[in-house]
Structure formats: structure tokens, C-alpha cells
């Protein structure tokens, strides 16, 4: 098993090796040049008109900070934290100072033009940020198992998804932010109309529009309300269905696999007891624990490979190029890879002790993963519909998390399972 680190880390800041914000240290790592050269360049550019300071501050604001130790960009906490509010206020004040200075120097297109433009730009920035941010922040931890309820009949579990207060707060903050942005843009438009004298002329038109829109709103309100309720119900049903599929896939990967091993080792009571204890521990952890993913893809794959090796006595060779911190989607990809390794270990042997080969590559854009065996292969179309190993635990799981799985298999040709997941920005 070997890990080949990515040669060019993503653009980031590295405050631990930096003097101020770690911009030069991070960019130096990316470009492969000594940060000292970049620092001298920034100082020189600062002396020549202050461009260096502006560039440095801009990079400090925009570049993500690297996580300590691994050189990978760390996830920036989302939401209106105190620090982001301070940065926003600071940038706004500096911008106001810059504009007032221009006004004082006479480099000014006029108050009726500039102030609405500034307002509109602020509003567009807020709306743009809101439109590019997902409704539920992916960095928020998934709902803990303890907050969900599983009925006694595990074969057809119903999961009640409890929305955490943190998610609700994030959604409300997003709505307020978007609403404030829209208000700024509308205010800028009204300001332009007011200063150009067009507002009084447009008053009748605006009044008529408001009346028509209000009437239409009253007419359509019940339909819109019902549509909203239907969409919410459909969304809840889709979430329930996905959760059911996740639970079924997990039960297949854990309990059913263990039961198959128990049947195979029924003659050895000690082995059976060990399997039962391990399964009990795993199931309790999954039911009660917080499933927030931690660690990175490479280490998770090695752990999974070691577990499969130990359980099935088949060598699993893992090669990983690059690395990425685990999130819910990447964790599902690793779980799908685990199922592919288990299948390869169970069915992919050629009798000569051949190993299962795993190759993974993690880039900033995508994580791709291949699990290959040299066994007898199989005809995918001939697999019975009630077998969930490939369909649910691999293909279905990847599709639920926005990725895709392709199984290249033919009788006598071995099997290669290809997993691909585009990484979210």
C-alpha cells in the first residue's frame, strides 16, 4: 500500500509558516517557489504605489486557510461568524473611505450615479452569494442517528428526519441575507428614479402594478400554498426514501455479510462469537453515534482494505494518488468501495491467491476509485433483482450522493468497479 502525495497543492494560505496571513507561504507552496521571493515582490509592489498591500489583503480575504499538517485547504466555517462580520464591516468602511476620497478629489461621476451603483453592487453581492450557497450547508454535520427513530421491523425501517436548530438558523440567515440584498437593489433603483425625477411620473404605473400583483397574489395564494405543501411533502418523501435506502445498504454491508460469515464458520463457536460481538459493536456505534465524517480518503481506504483483508484473508493492494478530507459524499464513496472490495474478496479469487487491487485518485475536481479483481467475473444482467450488493450498496449509494458507479464485468474477465464523484466547491 502506498500513497503518492499530490505534487501541486491547491491554492491556499498557510498562516503557520507565514509572517502575516500566510499568503506568500501558501502561494509559494502552490507555485514551488521560495516564499521569501514573493514577500520581497509584495514589499516592492507596496512601495510602488501600494498595489502590493491591496493584492495581499485581497488574497488574504479570498484564499482559504490550509489545515495544519496536511497542506490541504481547510473548510472555512460558513455562516455569519463574528470574524466574517468584522471582515465585511472592515471592507465596507474601507470602500466608503475610498469613495469619499475620490469624491473629495473630484474624480466623481455624481451622487445620483455612484451611490445607487454602490447600493446595487452590495445587493447583487448578497443575492449572488445566497444563490451560490446550497440551501443546507454541506459542512453541517449529518443528523445524528440518535435523533432518528427506527421501528422494530428493521426490514422496512421508517426514519424520521429531525432538522437541527443549526440548519434552521443557517436557512433563516440565508433568507434574511437574500432579502436584504433584494431590498438594496430595489432601493438603488428607487434612488435612481427619485434623483432623475422619474419616480413621480412612474407613480401611477407602479401603483397599478402593485394593485394587479396584489390581486393576482390573493387569487393564486391558495394554489401557491398547496403547491408549496406538495413540494415539501415530496421532498420529505424523497428524503425518507433515501434514508431507507441508506439503512438497507448499511444493513446489507454489515449484518447480512456477518450472517453469511457466521453460516460459513458455524462449526467454530469461538469465531462465531467474535463475529457477533464485532457486529454488535459496529451496529450500536452506527445507531447511537454521531456520523460526522472525520479523516481523509486515503487513510479511510487503507482502514477499509485492512478490515477486508482481516475478514476474508485476501490481500488488498491500495494505491492512492492525492488526498481529500472526508465529507458525507466521500464517506459514501469509501463505503461503496468497501462493498466492492468485499465482493472482490468473496467472489473474485482465481484460486491462486490473487490480490484485490484498489486504485484511487483524489483531485480538487473529482475523486475516482477503481476496485479490480482477476476472478471469474459475472454477467451483471444475470444478477437476481433481490441481490442488493451491487445495485444498492454500490450503484444506488453513489447515485444518492451525486456520483456514479460503473461495473465492468464479463464472465472469465474479472471485475472492475469504477466509482467517480465530483467534489463540491
Amino acid at each position: 500500500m502506498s500513497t503518492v502525495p499530490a505534487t501541486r497543492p491547491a491554492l491556499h494560505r498557510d498562516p503557520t509558516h507565514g509572517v502575516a496571513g500566510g499568503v506568500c507561504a501558501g502561494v509559494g507552496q502552490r507555485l514551488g517557489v521560495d516564499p521569501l521571493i514573493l514577500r520581497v515582490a509584495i514589499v516592492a509592489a507596496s512601495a510602488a504605489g501600494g498595489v502590493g498591500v491591496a493584492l495581499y489583503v485581497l488574497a488574504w480575504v479570498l484564499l482559504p486557510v490550509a489545515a495544519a499538517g496536511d497542506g490541504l485547504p481547510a473548510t472555512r466555517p460558513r455562516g455569519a461568524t463574528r470574524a466574517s462580520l468584522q471582515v465585511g464591516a472592515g471592507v465596507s468602511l474601507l470602500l466608503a473611505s475610498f469613495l469619499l476620497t475620490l469624491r473629495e478629489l473630484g474624480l466623481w461621476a455624481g451622487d445620483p450615479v455612484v451611490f445607487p451603483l454602490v447600493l446595487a453592487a452590495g445587493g447583487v453581492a448578497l443575492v449572488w452569494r445566497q444563490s451560490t450557497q446550497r440551501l443546507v450547508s454541506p459542512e453541517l454535520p449529518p443528523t445524528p442517528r440518535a435523533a432518528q427513530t427506527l421501528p422494530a421491523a428493521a426490514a422496512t425501517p421508517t426514519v424520521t428526519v429531525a432538522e437541527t436548530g443549526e440548519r434552521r438558523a443557517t436557512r433563516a440567515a440565508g433568507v434574511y441575507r437574500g432579502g436584504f440584498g433584494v431590498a438594496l437593489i430595489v432601493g438603488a433603483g428607487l434612488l435612481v428614479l427619485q434623483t432623475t425625477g422619474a419616480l413621480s411620473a412612474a407613480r401611477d404605473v407602479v401603483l397599478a402594478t402593485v394593485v394587479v400583483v396584489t390581486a393576482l397574489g390573493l387569487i393564486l395564494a391558495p394554489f401557491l400554498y398547496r403547491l408549496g405543501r406538495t413540494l415539501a411533502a415530496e421532498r420529505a418523501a424523497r428524503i425518507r426514501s433515501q434514508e431507507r435506502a441508506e439503512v438497507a445498504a448499511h444493513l446489507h454491508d454489515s449484518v447480512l455479510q456477518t450472517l453469511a460469515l457466521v453460516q460459513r464458520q458455524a462449526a467454530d463457536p469461538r469465531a462465531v462469537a467474535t463475529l457477533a460481538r464485532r457486529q454488535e459493536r459496529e451496529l450500536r456505534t452506527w445507531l447511537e453515534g454521531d456520523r460526522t465524517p472525520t479523516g481523509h480518503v486515503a487513510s479511510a481506504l487503507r482502514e477499509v482494505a485492512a478490515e477486508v483483508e482481516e475478514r476474508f484473508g485476501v490481500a488488498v493492494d491500495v494505491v492512492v494518488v492525492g488526498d481529500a478530507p472526508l465529507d458525507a459524499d466521500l464517506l459514501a464513496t469509501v463505503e461503496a468501495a468497501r462493498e466492492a472490495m468485499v465482493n472482490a474478496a468473496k467472489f473474485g479469487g482465481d484460486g491462486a491467491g490473487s490480490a484485490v487491487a484498489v486504485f484511487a485518485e483524489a483531485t480538487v475536481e473529482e475523486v475516482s476509485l477503481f476496485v479490480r479483481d482477476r476472478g471469474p467475473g459475472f454477467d451483471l444482467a444475470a444478477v437476481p433483482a433481490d441481490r442488493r450488493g451491487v445495485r444498492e450498496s454500490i450503484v444506488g449509494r453513489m447515485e444518492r450522493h451525486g456520483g456514479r458507479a460503473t461495473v465492468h464485468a464479463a464472465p472469465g474477465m474479472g471485475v472492475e468497479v469504477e466509482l467517480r464523484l465530483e467534489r463540491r466547491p
Partner: protein
Amino acid sequence: MSRRPDLPALVAGLAILALGALLLLDRVDALELRFGVLAPAFLAVCGAILLATGLDNRDREAAHGP
């Protein structure tokens, strides 16, 4: 011992120093300060201090969580 300076304190010190120099120049009649000049300078000082503090806090949040 960390080689990183305390950036918010450094920026605040330099910015207030610059503002003090402006006021001193005005006092000795080397410069005529009007509201149109003083207001942007005051805003710039506040903005620089807030920006430095925010960036420093953001790095701390990224390192230790909010």
C-alpha cells in the same frame, strides 16, 4: 515563541499613529483638515482595524473552530 506579529494591534497602532500625525499637521497649520478629508481618514482607520481583527479571528476560527 511565534514569529507572527499581533496583526490587529500592529494595524491599529499604525492607523492611529497616522491619524494622530494628520491631526498634528493640522494643529501646526501644515495641513488644513476639513470634514471631507477627515471623514475618509477616520473611516479608513476603523476599516483597517476591523479588517485586520476579522482576518485574524477568521484564521483562529479556521484553526480551532468558531
